[in-house]
């Protein structure tokens, strides 16, 4: 039983080793630089595979970009400098955080608009319920029904 479990877990172990290999190949002179590197490779998008960050991607280009981020980080370049270096070559596309411009404004405002619309909806419904007390006819019918229930 135990052997079977080991055999089943073996691919998982290999997968973990393979997945972290790319990042662990780098050695850093300063823990702050390591943090910056790890943040940046999660924030930069692979232009080749498009829906992965460069930390995640196995594309050759992603490796080159990781290498570049590592080099620049070790040279003491700041986050901002590295991001603008990448944008100068690959455009805004490479950064997962889009700039605030007319053609991207929907991306930025949509969450707030949805929130506001939701709040208005709730508010309107709540006030409508409050604003409609029972009229005479309804009150009579209600007491009738309640009486009926008591008699049974």
């Amino acid at each position, binding site marked *: 039983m135990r052997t079977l479990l080991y055999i089943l877990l073996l691919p998982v172990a290999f997968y973990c080793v393979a997945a972290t290999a790319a990042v662990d190949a780098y050695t850093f002179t300063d823990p702050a630089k390591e943090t910056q590197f790890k943040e940046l490779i999660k924030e930069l998008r692979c232009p080749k595979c498009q829906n992965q960050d460069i930390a995640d991607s196995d594309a050759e280009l992603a490796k080159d970009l990781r290498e570049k981020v590592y080099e620049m980080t070790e040279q003491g370049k700041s986050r901002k400098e590295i991001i603008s270096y990448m944008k100068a*070559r*690959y455009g805004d596309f490479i950064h997962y955080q889009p700039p605030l411009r007319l053609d991207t404004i929907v991306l930025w405002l949509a969450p707030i608009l949805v929130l506001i619309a939701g709040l208005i909806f709730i508010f309107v419904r709540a006030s409508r319920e409050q604003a409609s007390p029972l009229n005479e006819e309804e009150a009579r019918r209600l007491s009738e029904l309640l009486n009926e229930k008591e008699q049974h």
Partner: protein
Amino acid sequence: MKKLWLLLPLACFLVLAVFLYRGLYSNPRELNSVLVGKAVPDFQKVDLFDDNKHYDQKLLATGQPVLLNVWATWCPTCYAEHQFLNTLARQGVRIVGVNYKDERNAAVDWLSRLGNPYEEVLFDPKGQLGLDLGVYGAPETFLIDGQGVIRYRHVGDVNDRVWNQTLKPIYNGLKP
């Protein structure tokens, strides 16, 4: 006033629909190059055939327009476009090659077998020049004017259709 509120969801829908409709017909693989309109970045590269021959960005600013073609032997689409590049070269179109992330022997062998359409070939084994050009795969072709300014970038193979419809008019327009 109350009626106007009812139109709000419709307005939201229309804005979103226009936005998404545009996204539906844009090709995500055709990233606009930020380098169009800018000079070729500075570089120092050796010749593919001769380690003692060095080139820099002046190679691409000789007063005549030039195609800068990024290629590699590991790239099947490069194989597909190679014969067309030979044809262009025979017609007198200047093409400079960038051998991108490749092995020298394989590249030299490829050119001797398939013909060499390139005026010069820059050797870029680590892809640094490719990175500076914002290249994300091979083949890519840049149209560069006589002053060394990038005027157009084409992703994918150059073939008869692409040349006649897109590249040739720009290329002819750049000629002095």
